């Protein structure tokens, strides 16, 4: 057994010391260069994409900034929309006009103008006067007189229920606006 093992060891020794004979070293060299020059992970994989896109989540300050920016966006959105909704609700509660506006001067305003005219020493800018002051005075007197008579008439009607009903009935017949006394 001993000489056989010695032989085996000798053969191993010879094999270890002897260099391999290479016929085409260039081929081997090229193959090695090609293998090591290949970029690891250059194949597109889902994991690769996710790692590429969301790499920032592992950087603390970037992650915190992105979260803060998102929260600011959400808050701005909520604030803006709530303000807008509040304003729209307020508008909806306002008056809605269906028909167009007329620009005729109402009776109350005319009365106020008469009052100002009376108080102002009856001086009107000349370009506004298209009747004489005397005529206007007469008109004002007539208006005052008519106003007094109208009040007397209304008092008379108010005091007499029969007369009131009669006039209301007559007004309804002639006027469809339904004026009540």
């Amino acid at each position, binding site marked *: 057994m001993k000489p056989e093992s010695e032989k085996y060891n000798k053969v191993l020794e010879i094999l270890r010391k002897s260099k391999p004979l290479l016929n085409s070293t260039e081929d081997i060299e090229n193959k090695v260069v090609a293998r090591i020059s290949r970029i690891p992970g250059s194949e597109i994989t889902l994991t690769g994409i996710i790692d590429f896109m969301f790499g920032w989540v592992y950087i603390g300050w970037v992650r915190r900034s992105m979260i803060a*920016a998102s929260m600011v966006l959400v808050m701005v959105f909520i604030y803006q929309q709530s303000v807008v909704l509040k304003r729209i609700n307020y508008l909806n509660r306002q008056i809605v006009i269906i028909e167009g506006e007329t*620009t005729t001067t109402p*009776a109350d305003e005319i009365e106020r103008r008469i009052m*100002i005219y009376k108080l102002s020493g009856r*001086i009107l*800018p000349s370009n506004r006067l298209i009747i004489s002051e005397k005529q206007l005075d007469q008109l004002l007197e007539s208006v005052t007189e008519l106003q007094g008579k109208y009040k007397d008439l209304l008092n008379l009607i108010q005091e007499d229920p029969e007369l009131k009903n009669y006039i209301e009935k007559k007004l309804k017949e002639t006027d469809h606006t339904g*004026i009540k006394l």
Partner: protein
Amino acid sequence: MKNKSFKLIVSLIIMMVVSCDEPETVVTNYVHTDGSVTRKIEMRNTKNKFELSDIQVPIDSTWTVKDSCEINVKGDTIWIRRAVKLFKNVDDINLSYRNDSGANREISRKAAFRKKFKWFNTEYSFSETIDKQLSFGYPVKNFLNKEELLYFYSPDNVKQEKENGPDSLKFRALNESVKLNTDNWTYKNLVSMWIGEFAKLTEGKSGYDLKMDSLKAHEDEFVSLIKANEKTFDSLWANGFLLKEFLGEANALKYKTEADTALSVVTRNYFIDFKDYSVRIAMPGKLIGTNGFVDSTDLLLWPVKSDYFLTEPYEMWALSKIPNRWAWIVSGLFLAFVLTGVTIRVIKKG
């Protein structure tokens, strides 16, 4: 007290007397996102007469004009003139106001437009402002409460509808209250203006008792005095009674000329040469704010009357917004991106 019929008679008489040839005019501003404004004017008249000098808002030969006529429900012929012009910006509108030779040329008016980017929305505001006319007057809001103020600024057809509607009693009482308080406002303005003008005229000539502050302290007394003697104001003023009561006998005699001059100035300033009209504004996008009256199509309306800008500027403003869809999408994607990143981190960490 229902004195509608009487008021109608008075209105009719007065309208016959003071009515000129001015048409009923409505100006509509269609505001565009780039700040340009299409301005449409509709004038209605019982005569086929539309003199530039009678029209309430500036209009000239550069406008596109169309005339037509229609028969109203009463069978009367109404002549209508419609004019349109696209203004590049509000500066052009302001220029036309400055060069106005129409019925309201004495009144200072201006328009303003502003566009504000707010990421999710872009806001647009447009306004037309009429400057106040009186230097020494009081704001009407000092005399009316919130409800009365709303009623005061309401278009006449809205007032009429309310007064003849289901809550007619309430609104007629409100109308009376507004009338009473605006009468007080008028008295107070007249007296305040007279004091202001009188103090200016007597400045340097009189003693402390005729200085503005001193006269102002007795303003309410003078108002009460005038109200109590409204019907005999003419004669009481002419014979110097009112002035004696207010200034004292010596001052009344000494400064009668200044007092009369001040009254003339007050009258001239108070009777503003102004013809009423209406302003409408249509804003781009969704309407979100205004001080006008809104109709069902989001078209806004303001009556324009001389009372509204006597003592404070009358601003008709509207605010609207257009959502920036691209900003909504960008923001949504960004939120989803951040949320996904955070979720991945949590999963991997777990």
